[in-house]
């Protein structure tokens, strides 16, 4: 029980740390978002009008007052789910804008992540079982090289070959003319748009699983219980799958959650290349337009998502492997 309480405690503390960090980052920098916004609307060289700035500040809800009062105000807003107004999609609320993009990213990331986990773990386990074979060295060397490719670059390569040269897939966006809805035409349209971004993510993400699984599996294969299983004359397949792979899979559960963070990074770049209407593209837009409320909320949302995934993985790990509950001091 103590294990679970500690994990929940860590989650809450981390969440608080992230929220506070998110509050502090903009305030560590000089400059005033309201001034920037007025400057942007008025043109680069226009004189700043103080009344305009004040009006903008009121409209955007940009904070003023002491750091402490700002902090409490900020926490209060968060507690009410109030994340401010997007500069880019003015006058829409940040939450509405994100709500639009969330599903695109969620479906794309969930599908590719699960698929690549399954593929990666299977390849890694097989490579470890056939250690030092040709298959093993091809998989290890190949994934080392492929893992170094930039997701953005892979996306451009796929775009060049399959969208521009061959014309098999659309070049950008998440759907074409048809209006979103649950009908066959739209689903087909959306899938054809999502295909290349998914492939781009699928090329990079299994790599971590392959190498991680291979390493833990090799370590497990040297343990006594494997030797015992072999000595008992159990068939290879049983030893490999029921004994070694099953135990090697456990560390990947927590790895799975941690990898989400890296995957989001990749998704940002891939979505930018394909102009895919998900959170990644929103982040790119937020950066380009200095849309700070949107940027901050995206950062908070993605981080919280990873933290929650991490907590679930930790709790699950504690249930699946009793050693974990005892091993930690």
């Amino acid at each position, binding site marked *: 029980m103590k294990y679970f309480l500690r994990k929940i405690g860590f989650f809450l503390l981390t969440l608080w740390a992230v929220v506070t960090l998110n509050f502090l980052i903009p305030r560590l920098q000089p400059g005033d978002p309201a001034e920037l916004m007025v400057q942007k609307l008025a043109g680069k060289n226009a004189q700043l009008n103080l009344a305009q700035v004040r009006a903008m500040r009121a409209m955007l809800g940009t904070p003023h007052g002491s750091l402490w009062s700002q902090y409490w105000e900020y926490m209060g807003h968060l507690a009410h789910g109030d994340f401010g107004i997007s500069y880019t999609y003015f006058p829409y609320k940040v939450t509405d804008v994100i709500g639009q993009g969330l599903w695109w990213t969620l479906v794309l990331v969930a599908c590719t992540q699960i698929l690549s986990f399954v593929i990666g773990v299977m390849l890694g386990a097989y490579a470890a079982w056939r250690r030092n074979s040709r298959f093993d060295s091809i998989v290890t060397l190949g994934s080392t090289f492929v893992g170094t490719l930039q997701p953005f670059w892979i996306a451009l390569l796929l775009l060049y070959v399959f969208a521009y040269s061959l014309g098999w897939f659309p*070049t950008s966006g998440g759907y074409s003319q048809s209006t979103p809805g649950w009908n066959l035409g739209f689903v087909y349209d959306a899938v054809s748009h999502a295909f290349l971004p998914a492939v781009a993510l699928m090329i990079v993400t299994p790599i971590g699983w392959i190498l991680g699984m291979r390493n833990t599996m090799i370590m497990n294969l040297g343990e006594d219980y494997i030797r015992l299983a072999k000595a008992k004359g159990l068939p290879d397949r049983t030893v490999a799958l029921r004994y070694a792979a099953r135990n090697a899979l456990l560390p990947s559960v927590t790895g799975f959650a941690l990898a989400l963070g890296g995957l989001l990074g990749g998704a940002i770049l891939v979505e930018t290349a394909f102009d895919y209407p998900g959170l990644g593209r929103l982040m790119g837009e937020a950066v380009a337009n200095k849309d700070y409320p949107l940027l901050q909320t995206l950062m908070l949302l993605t981080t919280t998502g990873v933290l929650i995934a991490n907590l679930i993985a930790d709790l699950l790990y504690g249930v699946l492997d009793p050693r974990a509950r005892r091993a930690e001091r």
Partner: protein
Amino acid sequence: MTTSGFTPAGAPDQAKNIEVDPEGTAKEASTERPESWYSVIWSSKKARVGVITVGIFILVAVFAPLIAPHDPTDSSFTPLMGPSGTNWLGTTTNGQDVASQLVYGTRVSLIVGLFGGLIATVIALVVGMISGYAEGTWLDDVLTFVTNVALVIPVLPLIITLVAYSSTRGVTLIIFVIAITSWAGAARAKRAQIITLRNRDFVTAAKFSGEGTLRIVFREIMPNMTSLVAASFVGAATGAIGAEAGLAVLGLGDNNQVSWGTMLYQSNAQGAIAQGLFIWVFAPGLLLAILITAMCFVNFGVDLLSNPHLRED
């Protein structure tokens, strides 16, 4: 074969065994003395390829002005040209020479890798070693908590947010931001390592002889971790190079510098693919991949130093 990193004296019956000094430079080495650090690295084919490739990149970066045919920012060429005698790899939409940009881009990647890796490694060392040495105390709890927080926060969104707020986007800022966001994994590894080293006899001896904690940690224990530190430096440098490219691709790079990342950004922003300028789009990404792969290969070699089991097969 015995290890060289962890037992400096080696087995007594092996007269050929040579000492490795704290900096990791062997005093003497030849092919008959496989324990010296560079012959261990050199013995691995992968690591050899990696070392040579990285070496070539370093030479290109250092001698960029001599190698590059033109000034990378000179936009006086005919735009949108394919490869030709003057422009070996064609020109950009702005009429800049792609080959020269590639050559100069090497510099940014290597500088970011060198300093980003260095700073991240120093942070990881300090945090990991203090935390591990003070295991079980409140200091360890605090440092472990900070490390764990840094470990779970997704790095790229955080880096993007940090850089997006700053008005100046020089290479220095990018290096700094990358370094302070990417030390956590290495710090955890070092904490684990120091816990295993902390209770060895030579540490106990140092304690009894009255040496201070800092001195024990950094003078007595750290030299035994040279190969781990080297591995984490190469790892951090690799990560920093990738992160710089990712930032630049989103338009957050240093726009006064030509880097492979900014080349990717420019080529994408200006529709190079639609115009069929594929060298401009694909060469920077390919060079990035080659450099990063080479650094991973170097790390294979460094791993051989710290883990002699890997050497046997």
